[in-house]
């Protein structure tokens, strides 16, 4: 959302690096290929609504004893 998109969704993921001709660092980090989608808001109103939906309350801090 920080870049200006809404409706982000990862739609697919899979190992796309196994058995590549040369050894890769991909496996060291559990790297997978993904597809994702997102959408530019229709207007500022939709963007502001999406931003507001992200707002969260911070619970009261526990007392330190």
């Amino acid at each position: 959302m920080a870049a200006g998109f809404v409706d982000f969704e990862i739609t697919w993921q899979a190992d796309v690096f196994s058995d590549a001709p040369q050894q890769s660092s991909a496996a060291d980090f559990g790297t997978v290929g993904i597809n994702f989608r997102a959408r530019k808001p229709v207007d500022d109103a939709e963007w502001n609504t999406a931003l507001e939906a992200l707002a969260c309350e911070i619970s009261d801090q526990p007392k330190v004893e």
Partner: protein
Amino acid sequence: MSNRTSKDIELDMEELRTAIQEEYKEVAINPQQGFHFHTGRPLTRILGYHNVWLEGIPETSIESFAGTGNPFSIDAIRQGEQVVDVGCGAGIDSLIAAKMVGPTGKVIGVDMTPAMLAKAMSSAAEAQLSNVEFHEGYAESMPVPSGWADVVISNGVLNLMPDKAATLKEMARVLKPDGRLQIGDILVQKAVPTSAKQKIDLWTG
């Protein structure tokens, strides 16, 4: 050497760009040599590209394909739409998109590697696709008008950008309101330490 660095990690941007260009120049001119990632027709099968999509796409584009996902499986690209392919490489996805949007649509492919662009342009001519054009440029500052695109596609490119937020903002800039991102990329499932992020060879290998 440029002293410009990514704001999040100490990394020389020009050195990184040069390393990426050199890697993908090899993918363009020596596609058979074998890389740390799959390429070409075997990769299209791994990623679920339909054979019908590849019909009429010149082999010079297919052989240098180095994507990590499948933008076309996310949502349909429709007749008449305008599409930007960010980091188009040798053009396979741009040419597939050009066939999908048809003569009333338009595709712009952007890439920073001249050897890849040369293959893309050659393929477009061979395939007789006049609704696609290719431009040299960076994903963070594309030679595309604001609000031009119905869809932005990209495949295996965003992971190479040190400043992903800046690249995504640029994608947002070129999209029309309500425009779609359809992206293939990678995800790591283990945290990458800062020390690793500062190693250029880990970005390309």
